[in-house]
């Protein structure tokens, strides 16, 4: 019993740490693509850790099987959604942020995330 609780706590703290870093990246990184890279990968793995923790906590049953289904679905859907929206952004003319372009642009545009 105590082993199970320790496992659940470890997995949840790991997932929470990943969610925190993903949110930090979403807030602090300079442009759209880097922000999407932070959330697209961080959120997927963090959700997997949370789901594993919940499956361990609940034990072996139909509910944990459904949790596994959610994990599989998230691992298919989340990268696809990230890919679709980043591709749409590239087609719309948003160009990735680089240090040279950031120096060329004025301070205001860098604040805006280096778009265009």
């Amino acid at each position, binding site marked *: 019993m105590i082993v199970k609780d320790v496992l659940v706590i470890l997995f949840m703290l790991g997932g929470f740490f990943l969610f925190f870093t993903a949110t930090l990246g979403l807030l602090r990184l300079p442009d759209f693509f880097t922000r999407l890279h932070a959330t697209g990968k961080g959120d997927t793995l963090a959700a997997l850790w949370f789901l594993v923790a919940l499956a361990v906590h609940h034990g072996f049953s139909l509910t944990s099987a459904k949790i596994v289904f959610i994990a599989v679905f998230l691992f298919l859907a989340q990268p*696809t959604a990230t*890919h*679709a929206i980043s591709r749409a952004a590239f087609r719309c003319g948003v160009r990735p942020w680089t240090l040279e372009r950031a120096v060329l642009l004025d301070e205001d545009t860098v604040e805006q995330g280096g778009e265009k």
Partner: protein
Amino acid sequence: MIQESDDVIVKAVARLLVPFIVVYALYVVMHGHYSPGGGFQGGVILAASFVLLGVSHGLEKTRRRMSEKAAMVLSSIGVLIYGGIGALCLILGGNYLDYAKLGKILRVTPAEARSLGILGVEIGVALAVMAVMCTVFFAIFTAEESPEDYRSLE
């Protein structure tokens, strides 16, 4: 008019996910009595699968599976199932949607008749909601095809 997406990843994932979404929608409809969900939610998930199909594979292939005419007919059939079961209970001597009276023609106990009656109503609601959501989807995504129809409405 949405063209077929030239994005291989979205198309492949949509092709993989749509059957499972439909099966999950049927699960939500069937387990409406003892888990969250029911007719409305299952119908919305069914319509979401058509939206995903339309966005990834273009409107032509979606129309081949669910045309506007079929959506119109299905919405009417859904309302007919709902109202028909209610009226059947009325004819058999109960109140509107009093499923226990259905046991007389189904030859089951009143408790089983209640469960079956609710299932029938849920299926009717799911059909109607799915068809109407598909109609809304088609109306939004083909708005630029026939602008004069919308101008005449103003």
